[in-house]
């Protein structure tokens, strides 16, 4: 649940999703972004958790405030794919991978494809999360290696929900292009 509660409905409102394998830190990223908090405790998200954040971005030179409805969708596994209706109607998605688990990086493309199938106009930002757990050199190697994504991927960030690094930029970048 978000911290701020406006008294009336804000007109401009956008839905974004956080997708990725289970345990990559989607919920933690949202908690960091929305509530400015982090917890080491792992709680698996069941179904969907929706958060809301008022965000101010500069669009076409003018600062615009709009509301971001962030759908934290349960992590997918090879046994369980996420329900397509959760993704429908989202303008963009933050695709999250865990830098300490190479297979999660390999699955990034799959997540992007699934989302694109439902929302062809959707844009992405990739978050290589838990960047605080590996050496910066390794991180650079990983970042350089992950360049062959489709054009809809706006940017790739190495993030850490724990330290908060690049978390805001992640959301800002996505919000700017919605």
């Amino acid at each position: 649940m978000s911290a701020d509660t406006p008294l009336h409905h804000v007109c401009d409102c956008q839905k974004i999703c956080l997708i990725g394998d289970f345990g990559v830190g989607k919920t933690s990223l949202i908690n960091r972004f929305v509530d400015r908090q982090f917890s080491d405790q792992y709680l698996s998200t069941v179904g969907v958790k929706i958060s809301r954040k008022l965000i101010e971005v500069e669009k076409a030179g003018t600062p615009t405030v709009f509301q971001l409805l962030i759908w934290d969708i349960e992590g997918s596994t090879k046994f369980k794919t996420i329900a397509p209706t959760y993704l429908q109607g989202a303008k963009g998605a933050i695709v999250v991978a865990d830098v300490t688990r190479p297979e999660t990086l390999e699955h990034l493309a799959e997540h992007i494809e699934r989302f694109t199938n439902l929302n062809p106009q959707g844009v992405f930002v990739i978050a290589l999360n838990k960047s605080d757990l590996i050496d910066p050199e390794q991180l650079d190697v990983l970042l350089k290696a992950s360049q062959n994504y489709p054009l809809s991927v706006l940017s790739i960030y190495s993030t850490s929900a724990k330290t908060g690094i690049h978390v805001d930029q992640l959301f800002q970048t996505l919000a700017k292009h919605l």
Partner: protein
Amino acid sequence: MSKIMHRLENLTTEENLSQDEVDQLHQFLNLLVDLDIIEPEPTIAKEIEKEDEFPIEVGLHLEQLPSFSMQINFPLPPPPLETSIETNETQFQQLQQLLMGAELRILNDLIAGSRQQVLRLEHQIYDPQELSELLLPRIGELLAQKVAHSKEEMIEAIAPIIDQIIQSRTQQNRQSMGNALASSISPAIAQQVALNSEELSDAIAPTMGQAIKKQIFLEQDAMVDALYPIIGNTVGKYMGATLDAINEKIEQTLSVEGITRKIRAKMQGVSEAELIIREVMPSQVQAIFLIHKASGLVIAEVQHPEQHLESDMLAGMLTAIRGFVNDCISQSGDLPLELDSIDYGTSKIVLEVAGYCYLATVVKGEPSAAFIKMMQSTLRHLVCQYDPLLHHFDGNSATLPEDIQKALEILRDSGESAAEKGGKPSALFFCGLAIVGLMAVPWSIFQYLGFRQQQAESAAVAALYAAPQLSIYNLQVEAKQDYLSLSGRVPNGLLRQKAEQVVAVALPKWQVKNEIVAVEVPADPVLAAAEVQRVTRVLNRLEGVAIATRYHHGKVWIEGTISPLIEASHIPQSFAQIPGVLSTLSTVQVQPLRIEVRFYFEPDVSSLHPSDRGYKLQQVINFLNHYPRQSLKIIGYSNSPTREPGSEQIALDRAHALKQALTERGIDPSRLQIQGSTDLPPGVDSTQPNWLSRCVIVEPTAP
């Protein structure tokens, strides 16, 4: 030839041939000579010289003979002489013997051995015991090979009898068959369940009941334990629900609310249950959201100003739940299931889906059917009107026409008015109550006055009833506004006054208006008749009175007789005194007393017959004693047709005789009058015997 012989001899010495072998060779050579195959030495030499003719090299490699070769020239053609055929045959045999003797023996031995072998094999094949022993070690392998080679054939071969095999084996040893199959039974059943559970159910179903019964019989506790969690809960749940229902019914049915609800249900044409729910939870629209179906973004919303809900979160989560229902729950059906409503606490979120959006209404309490219809029609209108806009909604509600918002507001207002409508009947009810109250005031005053009058009337009636003289009269008391009116009839003015007095004493605050009429009430004919009967009975008890009476319309008819001792006029007077008897009509006859005793006399005798002095006389005495005030007239008769003189005297004497007899017995003579008559006595005429007229009769007379 000699050379050969010589060589043979050499051989014997050189090769150490046995004499026997040498003999054989000799025989052989002789044979060759006999057969003209070879010739004695000179010929042989000559023949040998003709080497180029038909040289035949015969090589014999006998083990016994290290190497033996010679050249034999067969003359061509050898002249076949018929005479020498037989000789030839024997010779041939000899040759054969010579050439192949040893081999033949070996061969013969071999053949004999082979025959034995064959015999043994035949024996082995045809003797089952032997055959089975023979095949036993290989049979498994053979079968395995056969199976590997052609499984189908094996199956075809065995299939027709496999059931019989199992059956037969089962008959032989059930236990072992059971053991053999035991381990495969469970997987077999599992497999069958997977393949065709219905068939298995059909097979097992008929015995299920029996099996359960048996198990209960065998191990009741185990069954109880097994079923308890289900049955306990089921029974508990069922009983709980039933009790609730009963409670509710008991509480509601006979109450005023219950009855008014019944009437309202009838009037509004809805079920009573719906009314109950509405009563328990009066519905109130808290919020209405129009939500984009795909993204879960709020297109438009109206909310209760005091209880603001987080529309975006709510819409998002609702959309997620809807999606979950569509995706994960309704996979098997042809159509995706729709989420109709979500209940929480006393509130409810009602969902109506159409096109690219859906309407979610948060209602506190139970929404009415009318409101849901309104929701549906609103959504239909919006979808028809603005479908493309709704479809491409991108989160900016400013781009949408205001009509959408207005439609939702109208819907909310309709919901509220519906809720108010629910309140209207109660307002109406209060109005009605007020009117009834206003009407009730005069009514209750009227009721009070009525009550007071009724009280006074009751008191007056009670007082009248308590007065003994008046209790039998039906007197009415009617309470007017300020006085009591008495009415009714009494037999006289005294009772009329008495009644007024009684009431005045009992209710001193009330004025009494006496309207009682004093009337001469005709006596009760029944009572009068009864009294007439009573008097009749009393009079009949008197001596000499035998009367009968008839009463009709106040008149008494008297019939009968009375003795002359009684004053005849007394009888009608007695009846005339009875109330209700207006007149009497008496036909009473006065009947004299009689003593039916006659004393008879002999002719011309005036003294009593002695026998008459007994019983007859006593009767007269008894009469006189019984009626002490009565006198007797004793009349003597002496009838004579001739009217003789003196007969009159005899008559008188006879009377005198009785008088005397009575006097003697103590009767006062003054009570006795005597009289003599010559007439016939009463009741006797002249035709009758004479003696009847010679008598004395007695007649009672008044003193």
